[in-house]
């Protein structure tokens, strides 16, 4: 059975028709895990027993003739920053390596109620801070398309799990691009929804005003299906607004029409774009034109300001939300500590990684009395400008098309400075949507000559997820899904 080339809806249908059992599907997934995981390293925790138990339950319910929700019986993965009651949730940090939450994240509760099968908790950058999954305190994750390369991050484990067939779909979280970038590098569809569409409750906070949860899938339709499942209003997340209009799956069926797609050529070309990436994007634009879309050149002048603003604001909020990991109430406490001060200093020094520490320090600086006005406030103002600029562009355009990353996946162990520009500039295309709280979809457009996936980003105005899916689906329908990642040779 080749479940990897089947869409979620096809799997669901096979389960319903009983041509495939949930147990068979789950065992097939774990089979792959047994063969590949040692190389890929997509997971921190595997929940095999729970998965089989859930699968058997679904089979039983189906046998009884019940009609189950679309994701019932389908094995998926959760990024390990999503709380799962009774299952350790590590945030890929030594600090939380043994933490077993006594509560469920809202999204996991929804999926559990839908009878999804949980394969495991996916690897990630520590506390979602990073863009290659190399800051995980557990192990790095490898890109299924080229195991010498990174899968991106911070949701790199989620991406690698789906790309390698070790899960049929996964949830990631996206603060500055942590769903879209690994999706692009691993040849997946990754949606960062409108801020507030999906509840953040029970998902470890990195930066409250920026964090969003979203699906990572092989196909556009899969993505819409998962998003429809998790886009539910949560009364206990004050920012949660849920889905206003109809389902994303429904809006996929609407007419394509003559959309106007903004193309910020100047901003895109000002960054050293990999020639392959550039060529594939140009081709994508021509494709959309051929389908009746209008390509409108637009200016995104705030893209550089967005980069600075993002790192200041996310680090400031991150500083504040990270201080609870202090060795007192839960998590790691240094065995060497004797005084209160030592509990703080030693626990945090020993159990937090360099990337996390850097961001804490950056945020601590940006919020300090002497620098608050020049850094935090200025960044907050810049954020407003980014928002306003996107608002203006969306008056004329239905969507904006950009690259997701300037380059395809890079080799593991690459030093940040070798990536070109500074450490963070590879993220620049994903940051404006994060700051503005608008939805952005990463869609694979093909493989480079080296067989590395390349993605495009489609940004839209708030709650225009359906439209973005429609644009993406048109591309996917015409070109087909990109080839599956090759089998991993052990």
């Amino acid at each position: 059975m080749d479940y990897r080339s089947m869409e979620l809806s096809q799997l669901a249908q096979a389960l319903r028709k009983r041509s495939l059992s949930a147990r068979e599907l789950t065992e097939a997934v774990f089979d792959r895990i047994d063969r590949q995981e040692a190389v890929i390293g997509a997971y921190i925790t595997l929940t095999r027993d729970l998965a089989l138990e859930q699968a058997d339950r679904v089979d039983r319910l189906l046998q009884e003739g019940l009609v189950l929700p679309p994701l019932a019986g389908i094995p998926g993965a959760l990024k390990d920053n999503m709380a799962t009651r009774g299952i350790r949730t590590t945030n890929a940090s030594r600090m939380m390596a043994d933490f077993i939450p006594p509560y469920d994240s809202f999204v996991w509760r929804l999926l559990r109620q839908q009878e999804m099968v949980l394969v495991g908790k996916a690897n990630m950058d520590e506390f979602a801070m990073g863009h290659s999954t190399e800051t995980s305190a557990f192990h790095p994750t490898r890109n299924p398309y080229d195991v010498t390369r990174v899968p991106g991050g911070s949701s790199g484990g989620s991406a690698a799990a789906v790309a390698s067939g070790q899960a049929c779909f996964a949830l990631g979280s996206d603060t500055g691009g942590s769903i879209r970038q690994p999706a692009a590098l691993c040849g997946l569809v990754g949606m960062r929804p409108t801020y507030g569409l999906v509840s953040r409750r029970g998902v470890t906070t990195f930066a409250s005003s920026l964090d969003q949860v979203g699906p990572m899938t092989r196909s556009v339709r899969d993505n819409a299906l998962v998003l429809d499942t998790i886009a539910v209003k949560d009364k206990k997340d004050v920012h949660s607004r849920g889905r206003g209009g109809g389902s994303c799956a429904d809006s996929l069926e609407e007419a394509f029409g003559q959309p106007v797609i903004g193309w910020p050529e100047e901003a895109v070309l000002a960054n050293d774009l990999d020639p392959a990436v550039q060529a594939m994007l140009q081709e994508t634009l021509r494709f959309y034109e051929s389908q009746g879309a209008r390509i409108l050149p637009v200016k995104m002048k705030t893209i550089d300001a967005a980069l600075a603003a993002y790192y200041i604001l996310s680090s400031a909020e991150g500083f504040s939300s990270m201080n609870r990991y202090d060795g007192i109430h839960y998590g790691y406490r240094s065995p060497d500590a004797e005084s209160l001060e030592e509990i703080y200093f030693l626990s945090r020094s020993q159990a937090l990684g360099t990337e996390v520490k850097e961001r804490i320090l950056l945020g601590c600086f940006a919020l300090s009395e002497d620098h608050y006005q020049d850094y935090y406030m200025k960044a907050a103002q810049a954020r407003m400008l980014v928002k306003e600029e996107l608002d203006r562009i969306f008056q004329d355009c239905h969507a904006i098309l950009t690259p997701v990353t300037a380059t395809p996946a890079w080799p593991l162990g690459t030093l940040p400075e070798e990536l070109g520009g500074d450490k963070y500039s590879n993220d620049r295309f994903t940051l404006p949507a994060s700051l503005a709280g608008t939805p952005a979809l990463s869609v694979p457009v093909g493989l480079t000559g080296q067989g590395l996936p390349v993605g495009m980003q489609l940004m839209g105005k708030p709650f225009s997820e359906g439209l973005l899916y429609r644009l993406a689906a048109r591309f996917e329908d015409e070109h087909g899904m990109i080839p599956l990642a090759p089998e991993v040779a052990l």
Partner: protein
Amino acid sequence: MSIKDYECVIGLEVHIELKTRHKLFCQCATTFGSPPNTQVCPVCLAMPGSLPALNREVVEFAIRAGIATHCTIAHRSSFDRKNYFYPDLPKAYQVTQNFFPICKDGYVEITSGDQTKKIRINRIHMEEDAGKLIHLPGEGTLIDCNRCGVPLIEVVSEPDLRSGEEAVAYLRKLRAMARYTGISDGKMNEGSLRCDVNLSIRKKGQTELGTRVELKNINSFNFVARAIESEFKRQVALIEEGGSLVQETRRFDEKTGQTYSMRKKEAADYRYFHDPDLVPVEIEAQEIETVRACIPRLAHERKAGYMEAYQLSDYEADRLTDDKELSDFFEEAVGATAYPKTLVNVILADVAPLYTEDSPGPALNPLSLGRLADLIAEEKINSNTGRKVLKALMEEDFDPEAYIEEHDLAQINDRQLLAPAVERSISANQKAVDDYLKGKESALRSLMGGIMKETGGRANPILAESMIREALKDR
């Protein structure tokens, strides 16, 4: 120069714990004194991914406090994070309202001596409480998180207070406000009312403020007054010796009556910023009016009403309304008497002192006290007997009139009935008689005492005194 040339400038920061059923941002109960760590959840323990959800009841309580202190209620306020590490603070930040508080620019009127004075309130803001640390000497420290996230309001006054006495008068007003509006018990000993004192001194006539010292952890009204007086003296003495003050936090030691330095105030940087997990608190004008309509008559309103209706002095009315329970008691009792003035005298002399900081007042039927006031006012019993009956009423309720009859306590207002007692007192106290005749007025007291002894305390004292004077007039 002496201490008389200096002025003490005081501002208070008062924390009032609100008795809402649930915590500020989660559904946990707020009951005082529950077993440690039984009123906690992932939100107030700051577990990863937990999110605050504002308890709207807290906003209503804060509005009540704002209305009762003549504040402007902000139609839009917001929450900020105050970042610092402490084991009683699981999130490592306290959610408070730093930039945009819910109430601003109010005042409280205090009576100190004969004067009433307005103490301006700079702001009232909502915030969450921290947990409690229990230090076990030699064993370590335990943390009780039951109090984490319990809602507080902080009332910040302008530096308008000038003495310990004024500070206490102000605190009493705030406590009364809390109790009248029903937002808190305001118990200092249980920590539901806590007070930090900011104090500086300056030469009289100066307008700029001196170096500010903060006094923390003071847990009774009495100690607030003593701490202020002691710190005032310390600062004056230091300046007089040519020393200079440092900005610092000091602690009041109840045993020695002195203040001691806790820490020099290094400029603590709390890195305040807007809490991105919360949205601004929006309050419609209509909501404020709804809350206003639900607030019972407040102290200052009752006070004005009493002065007008019963011709009470400012002082009397103030004391009656100082405590909501006492005021409620008075309002019930006054309906049962035709002599409010007498009732007020009895209450202020013998009942009001029993309403202390930590006591809700005696078990006493207000209607019985009203009837007792009638008996006193109508001279059916004298005030001494009245006090005895009052004491008995606090043991067990009864009808005072029936009681005095049964115990034969009625005042003797009849000259003929009193005459033998006067005779006997005079003949038994020759020395007092001699002294009186030599012009020693105080000797009358012994003679009166004799009469009271003879009559079991029932003699009409005014009548008895005039009869003594008459009897000795011709000697």
